[in-house]
């Protein structure tokens, strides 16, 4: 081993800075060099390919009515990344796909009702159409229909009538602002909800007409293929504090009682849904053509000893290698295994752990020296100590039962808010090999 010269040290620090950027937490599309295809990895680390399951339901649908599917997954598991791949694959197959980022059009922290969701989705689709081409008269007519409907309600549209927009009956109307106001202005949102709550059927008719016109606009090339609408981020809707229960009930109502309103004739629609929905009501999924859950990467087997799964570990290593030279961070390969097992197959947490390794190495006197066993163990210990703080003493018994039975059964309905929190904080995980099973995460296990 040679002693690195200062220039080398600086160079290494620069490399580590770049690596940190490559380890940024954000969804990556299939064309991004950081993307790793888990669905192609040996051993099916995530069970069946979720994108294949979703696209198969679309491609095998021979009706002209379209389909409606749910896509769900745990926080930080890579849902948005998979949806980007779904979009790319369907586009390649000749489908017109509109992907709407829910976070930009709805408020993720307030009760979502079908009315404001549909208005927001219409605005999102309208914005996507505007972004894809010029404002043709047909498009103006399309937006005009929606605006005329809203004008006939008690919704005050003055606050969304400014800015560059389409001309509706001599007035400027800004779709972007409409979506923005619904997402960020609680007063306007509740105004929309109050005005439309008793006219939902009417709104749905208007919405479906709007979507039918939108379909004509985008399927000119191949009208035989129904277009696809993907609405991302809705699984992130959750409340904090007293409104948490209300919001969860609202989501149950939306996806169960109003499932009919979420079907759009002539479209294949994929709605992202929170993972706790199945806990609330297992019948919800019956209302949809398919319901797909994206599990964590299965780093251990569903056996008593939680035997590490070498193929899944290898897949996660390969995923990390897509981001940069990870091997130079640790003295031996097995140390990466420790990080992977500590992450429980949760991609975001694994990336955070590796970023922590980068930081430790960066701060060493000689940043070219990889971290040793002791340092990695200490780092994992710090991660566990922090992550397990999400668990309260009262949660331990329930977590213990999951760890033993590998099933997710709520002792009573009152437990739901806590259960969804523990899912949200990645203390409870879902995996799949053959069937779906549950387990507590590695940090949570250290708390039992």
């Amino acid at each position, binding site marked *: 081993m040679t*002693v690195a010269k200062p220039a080398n040290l600086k160079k290494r620090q620069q490399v580590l800075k770049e690596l940190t950027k490559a380890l940024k937490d954000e969804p990556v599309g299939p064309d991004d060099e950081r993307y790793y295809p888990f669905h192609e990895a040996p051993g099916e680390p995530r069970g069946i390919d979720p994108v294949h399951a979703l696209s198969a339901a679309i491609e095998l649908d021979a009706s002209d009515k379209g389909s409606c599917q749910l896509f769900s997954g745990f926080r930080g598991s890579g849902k948005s990344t998979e949806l980007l791949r779904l979009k790319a694959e369907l586009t390649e197959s000749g489908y017109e796909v509109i992907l709407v980022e829910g976070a930009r059009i709805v408020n993720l922290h307030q009760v979502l009702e079908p009315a404001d969701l549909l208005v927001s989705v219409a605005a999102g689709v309208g914005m996507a159409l505007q972004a894809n081409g010029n404002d043709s008269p047909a498009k103006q007519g399309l937006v005009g229909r929606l605006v005329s409907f809203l004008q006939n309600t008690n919704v005050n549209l003055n606050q969304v009538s400014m800015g560059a927009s389409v001309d509706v009956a001599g007035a400027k109307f800004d779709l972007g602002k409409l979506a923005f106001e619904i997402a960020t202005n609680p007063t306007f949102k509740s105004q929309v909800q109050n005005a439309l709550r008793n006219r939902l059927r009417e709104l749905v008719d208007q919405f479906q007409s709007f979507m039918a016109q939108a379909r004509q606009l985008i399927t000119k090339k191949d009208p035989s293929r129904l277009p696809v609408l993907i609405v991302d981020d809705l699984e992130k809707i959750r409340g*904090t504090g007293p409104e948490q229960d209300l919001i969860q009930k609202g989501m149950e109502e939306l996806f169960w009682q109003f499932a009919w309103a979420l079907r759009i004739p002539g479209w294949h629609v994929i709605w992202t849904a929170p993972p706790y929905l199945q806990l609330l009501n297992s019948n919800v999924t019956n209302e949809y053509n398919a319901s797909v859950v994206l599990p964590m990467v299965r780093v251990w087997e569903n056996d008593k000893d939680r035997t590490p799964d070498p193929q899944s570990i290898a897949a996660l290593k390969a995923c990390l290698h897509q981001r940069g030279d990870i091997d130079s961070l640790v003295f031996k390969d097995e140390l990466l295994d420790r990080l992977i097992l500590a992450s429980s197959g949760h991609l975001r947490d694994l990336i955070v752990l590796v970023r922590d390794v*980068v930081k*430790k190495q960066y*701060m060493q*006197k000689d940043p070219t020296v990889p971290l*040793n066993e*002791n340092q990695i163990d200490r780092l994992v210990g710090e991660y566990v100590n*922090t992550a397990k703080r*999400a668990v309260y003493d009262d949660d331990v018994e329930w977590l213990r039962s999951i760890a033993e039975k590998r099933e997710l059964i709520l002792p009573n309905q009152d437990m739901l808010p806590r259960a969804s929190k523990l899912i949200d904080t990645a203390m409870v995980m879902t995996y799949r090999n053959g069937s779906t099973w549950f387990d507590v995460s590695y940090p949570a296990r250290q708390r039992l």
Partner: protein
Amino acid sequence: MLDDVWNDIVATLELGSGLRFAFVEVESSDVRTKLRQRLQRYLKKQCKSLRSPSAGQDPLDWLSHEQTAPGGDPPEETRWLVVPRRGNERFLLHRLNEGRDNLRRHLSGVLFLVGSRGILQRLANDAPDLWSVRELAFDLTEARQESMAKPAKKKFDGAETKNEYDVFLSYSRYDATDARNLKERLEKEGLRVFEASDLFGFEIYKLELLARTGYFICLLSPSYTYSKSLAQDLHWIHLYKRAVFPNRFIPIMVRTTTMPSEIRHLAWLDFRTEKQVEANYPRLLQILKSAAA
């Protein structure tokens, strides 16, 4: 305690892009002030400042003012926000949680959220969106300090009470028998030996210990040479000895192997066979005792 996390703090400041959240649990206002002052000193050296709300200013108002206009390129800044101890804490956490994406869009740099005992647990549960993207979270409360201090004290008791060793004996765990034999022999001569195998990685305390140790002996063998952990020890000790530990390296070959580059220039003692051990042990003792005298 602050020293333990300072490197992580600096790395968080220097690495990464966009907005990074650092959560701090701290009970004592003294510790909080020390952390803040240290941050300010660090940032001053970088010609930067620590931004925080003015006295009496509402934290959410302050954050709202801090956010640049959408579309702008937010400058990299370090911000310090103390979460109010009572009453408004939950409200603030909920609003921050809701505004996470906007904050990430419009701010860049590190935002320290500093709260009282239990804040980390409350953040995990009351602000799960923020919690899920935490870059750094650490606990500076007394309870944490105590829990950190206990194992450390136990681990280093020997070093702390005796203060000084004659020999720092570094070896691979596969050569434990040779190490034990040598240690016993040296101790019979009244020499104090600190043994360190690759079962325990190299830590900074060992460097401190080296300053109070007469000689560094490493038992060379293939398992030693190819142990990355020991190679790292050697690397650090080599760097260190150049400054304050010169001429006190004694490599002993117990199995035939190549010499690590750090000590290739040094003469080594041959302990590969029993006969060679008996022949060279007096020489080793002579060196060690001359220094002790």
